[in-house]
């Protein structure tokens, strides 16, 4: 009657375990030995059949014989195989003694494959494993939107510019930047303050006296701020007069680093000082 089963299910009519592809037919039955849909590999169409299946890392040999065909509950007999590979092969042999060669051979092949993948699993679990965290779409969208809004609210450019100007005002840059108008005003104010009464801070007085004579001013200040690394570069610039100081500063800057296309050229736009030669080329500023 296995022939009958095969003639109906296997070949002609519908078998729910069968999957057809362009080149091959597969069998989805869990007791199938090879995974293909063949006359010899169909567990339904063979009354004497055996398979290897593994459960929780242990391999079992399942056998089905004709005697138990009317008892579906007891149909498949299960034998636990030993963990040792060779011993397990021997066990397969002794259980399937007198069985057709095909089934014995395929069982052993299947057992080998199963043990190999079990070994791989055990090896991989020891290594670091990637933890897959599912993304929640709603949350991702929400975060993205909030980030955009935060970016707009942050007004980064303005904030950075403000911070830089703050630092300039608080003199963290020391003497690198000569803004004569600012310094001049400051000097004037301090001059007036001094003429009224003695100022408290000695530093102010020092700067005051120094700034009135532009030539020596910066060299004195430089000796105070000796921990700047770049002082040696700027000493030359700051020893000259005011006009030439700027010229030299801008030139030394442009020599010192890679020349910038951007705002580098338009530094002294507002000052009305005549340069007779070596005028700075007026390139367009790139918007910052």
């Amino acid at each position, binding site marked *: 009657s296995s022939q009958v089963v095969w003639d109906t299910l296997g070949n002609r009519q519908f078998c729910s375990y069968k999957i057809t592809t362009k080149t091959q037919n597969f069998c989805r039955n869990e007791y199938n030995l090879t995974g293909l849909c063949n006359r010899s590999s169909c567990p339904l169409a063979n009354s004497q059949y055996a398979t290897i299946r593994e459960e929780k890392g242990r391999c079992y040999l399942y056998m089905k014989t004709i005697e138990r065909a009317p008892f579906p509950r007891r149909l498949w007999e299960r034998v636990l195989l030993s963990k040792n590979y060779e011993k397990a092969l021997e066990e397969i042999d002794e259980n399937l003694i007198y069985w057709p060669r095909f089934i014995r051979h395929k069982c052993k092949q299947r057992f080998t494959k199963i043990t190999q993948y079990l070994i791989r699993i055990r090896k991989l679990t020891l290594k670091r494993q990637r933890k897959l965290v599912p993304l929640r779409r709603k949350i991702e969208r929400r975060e993205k939107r909030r980030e955009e809004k935060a970016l707009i609210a942050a007004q980064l450019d303005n904030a950075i510019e403000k911070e*830089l100007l703050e630092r*300039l005002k608080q003199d963290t840059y020391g003497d690198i930047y000569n803004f004569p108008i600012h310094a001049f005003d400051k000097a004037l104010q301090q001059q007036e303050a001094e003429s009224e009464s003695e100022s408290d801070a000695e530093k102010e007085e020092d700067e005051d006296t120094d700034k009135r004579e532009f030539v020596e001013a910066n060299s004195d200040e430089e000796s105070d701020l000796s921990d700047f*690394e770049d002082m040696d570069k700027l000493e030359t610039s700051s020893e000259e007069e005011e006009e030439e100081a700027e010229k030299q500063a801008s030139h030394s800057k442009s020599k010192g680093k890679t020349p*910038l296309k951007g*705002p580098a050229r338009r*530094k002294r*736009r507002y000052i009305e000082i005549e340069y007779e030669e070596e005028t700075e080329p007026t390139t367009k500023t*790139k918007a910052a």
Partner: protein
Amino acid sequence: AGEGSGPGGSAAEDGGPPAPERVLFPPTFSVSEIKNKQRRHFMFLRWKQQQRKEKLAAKKKRRKEREALGDKAPPKAVPKTIENQRVYDETTVDPNDEEVAFDEATDEFAPYFNRQTVPKILITTSDRPRGRTVRFCEQLSTVIPNSHVYYRRGLALKRIIPQCIARDFTDLIVINEDRKIPNGLVLSHLPNGPTAHFRMSSVRLRKEIKRKGKEPTEHVPEVILNNFTTRLGHSVGRMFASLFPHDPQFVGRQVATFHNQRDYIFFRFHRYIFKSEKKVGIQELGPRFTLKLRSLQKGTFDSKFGEYEWIHKRREMDTSRRKFHL
């Protein structure tokens, strides 16, 4: 009958011709009660127009009153922003707080801030980084001075950390990658310092930034940390500050900014130039990215047994739109 015929009547006459100046809606009428979609839509538009007109008229009136009052006018109302309405966080750091100052003098960053250690950074990625991540790592290493990029070829973090400590690295940055884009950053201060895990988003490499300048030079940039107000924000800010050497070279005129806004930390790298003492121009070079803090751990990287100082718990912390933690 009046109410029934009111909307019906006005709808019927205004199928084609434009809306009248003043529409009289009976008081209990609402546009959503009309069953016909076309008419409902039409009435809604008309209602909207009317609202807008009223709003404009009210504005004009207010402005006239303001001008009429002149100096005696009440001060302009400040619009509410999320920053204004922010729920007050009790861990906000007061600049004069002694306890905070004492804590900071004795925490893991004290040697850095006392200039005893020079930062040395190791940048690496997760396994098998793709091109974008690799380029991002390179650019990041040009931005951060004294940093080295090493590829992780399947090494476990727990094992490279002791090696890094032995070679005198002070910080470790791991950029996590997913589907060919970098999406996470783990910043770990090495001699058993805190580890911060961020989610990274909107990464832009140098070539994707418009109007960028030339490459960042070797000068040590300045660091700007904006808006790190709470205690947690303070420690995160200090972590960022400890990446860069303490003495910036002002000749380089480069500045790296970490700006915190609503718990998102924006990183930008600019070159600045002072055009006058009231104006400064900045030009963006270097990569940019945004970070969002996910967790802060006390020791070095250890996901299972580490002692977490702060974890972002979505259900508890994301309930209010005006509550921020950094």
